[in-house]
């Protein structure tokens, strides 16, 4: 029974693995890590000082070479490295009731949000907690330089659509239509990005994306999408407004352009794992067969058959 099962699994898994692999290979992505690149050479010894100095203009432009043609929609992600959104002190530091319902807002028990629960004089912060407080606030703007036949062509801005990046359930239920940011980032210590207090939370999609905490210290979050096809060899210029402090914990920041396949982004893992498992099953089946051929069962045992 066992050997046929192994063979069957092996034979089943290898084609699936190949299919996954192919699916993943059809997805193209461009990753550019800019956290160090965007710090001027003279400030490299004091990156934290650089990022915390409000008086410096921290815009930097990077050029991304597109190796393969990318079909629309192209998703733009920011990727953080060594950022522990899953840390216990962090991951639980929000209040779900406060986000959805303006009635709950006043009397919600926001103890869990400490130390970002109350502003001065005990007024609750909306949205409270460390997660919201540390909202990612680097911004990107994109421009394409299509490769023309002769030399450098003009610059054409790419519009980044930033709506629809969150889940519908988040927009409609979890984040209330009548809840507005209050006292947010008003403390002495400013964490990450600020929110427009005139916009209800249900429209603050970047907050929603950020607040769906990541499970691993390296993660990507959707920044927006571009509804345009990019050609192979063309260059995309990204103007990064670098303001998020990843330097104090030596974390990495990167911008990612990626298309999407049926299995999501480019991830060779499933395909490889399937191939390996399938092969392993076949090899195991072969080994077991060989072992049984060369070292037959004990005599007493055979007599029973």
């Amino acid at each position: 029974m066992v050997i046929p099962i192994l063979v069957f699994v092996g034979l089943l898994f290898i084609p699936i693995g190949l299919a996954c692999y192919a699916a993943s290979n059809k997805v193209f992505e461009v990753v550019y890590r800019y956290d160090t690149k965007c710090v001027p050479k003279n400030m490299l010894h004091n990156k934290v000082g650089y990022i915390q100095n409000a008086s410096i203009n921290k815009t930097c432009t990077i050029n991304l070479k597109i190796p393969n043609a990318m079909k629309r929609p192209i998703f733009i992600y920011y990727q953080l490295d060594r950022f522990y959104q899953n840390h216990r002190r962090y991951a639980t530091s929000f209040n779900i009731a406060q986000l959805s319902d303006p009635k709950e807002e006043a009397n919600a028990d926001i103890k869990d949000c400490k130390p970002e629960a109350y502003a001065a004089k005990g007024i609750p912060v909306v949205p409270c907690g460390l997660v919201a407080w540390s909202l990612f606030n680097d911004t990107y703007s994109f421009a394409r330089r299509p490769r023309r036949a002769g030399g450098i062509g003009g610059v054409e801005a790419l519009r980044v659509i930033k709506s629809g990046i969150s889940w519908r359930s988040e927009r409609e239920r979890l984040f209330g239509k009548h809840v507005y940011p209050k006292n947010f980032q008003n403390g002495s210590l400013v964490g990450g990005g600020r929110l427009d207090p005139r916009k209800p939370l249900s429209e603050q999609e970047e907050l929603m994306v950020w607040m769906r905490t990541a499970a691993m210290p390296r993660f990507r979050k959707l920044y927006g999408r571009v509804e345009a096809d990019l050609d192979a060899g063309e260059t995309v210029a990204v103007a990064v407004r670098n303001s998020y402090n990843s330097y104090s914990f030596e974390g990495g920041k990167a911008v990612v352009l990626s298309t999407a396949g049926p299995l999501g982004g480019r991830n060779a893992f499933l395909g490889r794992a399937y191939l390996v498992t399938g092969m392993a099953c076949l090899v195991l089946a072969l080994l077991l067969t060989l072992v049984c051929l060369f070292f037959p069962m004990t005599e007493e045992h055979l007599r029973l058959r």
Partner: protein
Amino acid sequence: MQRFVYINDESCRDSYRDNRVSNTKYTLWNFLPKNLLEQFRRFMNQYFLLIACLQLWPTITPVSPATTWGPLAIIFIVSASKEAWDDYNRYLSDKKVNERRIWVVKDGIRRQIKARGIHVGNIVWLHENDEIPCDLVLIGTSDPQGICYVETAALDGETDLKTRIIPSICADLSSEQLGKIKGVVECPNPDNDIRRFDANMRLFPPIIDNEKCPLTINNTLLQSCYLRYTEWACGVAIYTGNETKSGMSRGTAEPKLTAADSMIDKLTVAIFIFQIAVVLLLGLAGNIWKDSHGCKLWYLMYPAERPWYDFLVIPLRFELLCSIMIPISIKVTLDLAKGVYAKFIDCDDQMFDPETNTPAHSANTAISEDLGQVEYILSDKTGTLTENRMIFRRCYISGVLYGDKTGDALKDARLLNAVSSKDPDVVKFLMVMALCNTVVPIKSNDGTISYKAQSQDEEALVNAASNLNMLLTSKDSSGIAEICFNGSKFYYEVLDVLEFTSDRKRMSIVVKEVKSGKFLLLTKGADEAIFPRSCPGEQTKTYLEAVEMYSHLGLRTLCLGCRDLEEDEYKEWSKKFQDASCSLDNREHKIAEVCNSLEQGIHILGITAIEDRLQDGVPETIKLLRKAGINVWMLTGDKQTTAIQIGLLCNLITPESKGQLLSINGKTEDDILQSLERALTIMKTALERKDLAFVLDGWALEIILKRSLESFTKLAMMSRTAICCRMTPLQKAQLVGILKSSGSLTLAIGDGGNDVRMIQEANVGVGISGREGLQAARAADYSIGKFKFLRRLILVHGRYSYNRTAFISQYSFYKSLLICFIQILFSFSSGLSGTSIFNSISLMAYNVFYTSLPVMTIIFDKDISEATVLRYPQILLYSQAGRLLNRSTFAEWFGRSLYHAFVVFLITINAYADEKSDMEELSMVALSGCIWLQAFVVTLDTNSFTCPQITLIWGNFVAFYMINLILSAVPTLQMHTVMWHLCNQPSYWITMALIVAAGMGPVLALRYLRNVYRPSAIDVLQQIEQTDGHAQAPGNLESSTGTYLDYLLTDLRRNKSSIHQPLLSDSASSR
């Protein structure tokens, strides 16, 4: 220490307790604290309480405290209410006993009071068939000779009636005087010795002599016995309530813990230690990480000032995170499973006894696994192995073997012819059968005659004689016995009774034929006691052969003889006999000597053979059980010879050529110890093939226990069989205790009140609801109708229960460890901060719903069919040696859970990396991975697939998705819509398949290799079942399989002692 009982004296009624009998464990007031205390004696409960308390601290708890408090409360309430219910039932039965109406005489007036109102010193008046309410000293009976009969079965299990006699100074008291009697009884303080009562009594004026009169056990009526064949009797209460001899020997039943349970407890402790180590390591690492990295993470806002207990927070978080390593559900699951095993036993049609209409019943639902691990069976004899019904089967008279064709002499035409033709030898033989006894014939109103006898053998003989037209019609008080043979009446005057003692092994009576005036000595006894005293020249050889033949058939033989006496000779002897009877010192010896002088030159008339029929299926059952590696001991109150005969008959011991019976006895203490040492040496040096057994009696045991317990224990551990005769109930329990303390698992089976203590003492007590009443069955953990059902109880139910519990318990640890290892692995990527990858709902539901249901399928699982188990009983050795639940099997499960945790975790985080790295999704993927894997693990280890099993395993799957899809619809939960998203992603399903394949592949391959190269005995039998299909295996194959199994199991057999070595040392240290 003495107690003085003043008869009929109200002034001292309060110096001793009243007659309230109480078997309850709790009172209304102490129930809660006592029960809680008892429950918290278990390590697991203490642990859960600690965890539950820690969870109340919100800073450290990863999940809501309800996850522990809820189940904990349920567990406690369930076990407390079970205890309360049991105790309430005990209270009710006590109440029934206490409220019984009893006649008591006070100041000469008879009154009826409640049994509990009897005080020490009261005079209790009993009527025929009354149960005796407390221990009494007999002072009067309706019988002019001051005799009454009691049935002591409830106390010592002996069914014959016992004669009790009033003390000499109370003789000749009229019933009016009895009511007003005053006096004092000086007796020892309450004890549990039902064979001894050394006291004396003095009566006060006006009733006369101030002389001390000695009292013995023969002057007492003990609690829970019954008064029989006596119109009335009265006695003075001396011990009351729980202080009576039966109350003192009752003892309280301790709750029993199975060997599997204690193994689980041990594993729990091991896991606990492992958990502490993990927690300390992770806690330390977590603190270091916090100081070196955590402080740099501005988004965590670690305060500069930290409280003093800060260094404790992370370790305690990990402690709570890892607390699920010890599954709280294991107790509930196991209790539930055990309840189902018990129901299986209750509902087993094949253990239903149609004769007595009794099904098997398990009163104790908690110890079924122990049945599968039994090493010693200690069985009572009478009523348990035998039917406890003596029947006259055969006889040998003057050269003719009657009944050897039909098996029943009463139907043998030759004997019937001889009776009708008045063959003188046969007539004489029948006359001895009818007369030579102490049977009392009782004529009922409708003219039928019934016999009451002290010994069942005598009753059988008299009944047989009456069936052969030799009717003992009456015996009057003057000693004239009337016999009716073929319608004509004969009268004999019984002059003397030369009583039976176990030393003499014979009894005789001297009668005078009224018609002719001839004197006759009629005698019956064991062959070895009669033959040497026969007339010179008598041909004893043929008789010997007959005796031998009969005992090979397992019949109890008696040799009958007679002798004509000259009148002078008798007169002379009679005087000597009178003297001896009156002598004050060494009376017994003197009487024996005098009797011996008369019992010479006996003319042998023939041999009777009585059958105490074995219950049906007993020899086969014992053979099977012994083949299964169980040591069977017989503990009986009966005589040694009978015990040995029954032992031979029911395959307990093998006859001389192949077996050897080592007898441990002797006249003096030193003799006994010497023979013990001798037996030990023989046992040590004997060949393995020879079947050795030892025999000892109660007296020898008493001395051995006092002087040489250690070598006896050694002997007991080596001996597969033993026959212990003349055991008191206490000694039976002591033997069980000895075996138990040496680490063996014992099962005691019996049917009478005398077995109650041993049944309670043994790991498993089985009662036979038999002819001796229901006392044993009530005290027992299991009650069955017949001994033969023990085979199914042990081999089928016990074995399955053990296997199932072994799986369920280890599986429970596996699934908890699996989820716990994932948490630990996750903590390495969450900055060692103690974040739980799973949310509270998932964690709680994982233990309660997702994983408890599929494991329930194992309750219905049968690794090999019942028929196969019964055909190859040696497979029991496997569970007996604890092969399915021990450290190495547990290590296997541990490794498996570690491997599976890696598989689930690594695949999940890699498949759900980068933009998919969402906490809620990832946690749900990992959880589904666990559910998938464990469903396959259960499927792999299930051997029989029945409808409920498939429903439970795969239905659980459906339930998992249903629950999570529904939970995903709740907007206030963080996992809102997560499951919907996942189910729509092809990559989710692809990931699940990958987890299952990667997790199960190596497990399958390893199992295959082991099946082929190192098959366990169970694997072999499974293969046989598969290849055989339904066809019966041919005989030679079966035997070769048997040998192969034996070969596989020899290791177990040989290592058995070493396997139990750790158990042994552990049990010693735990005490």
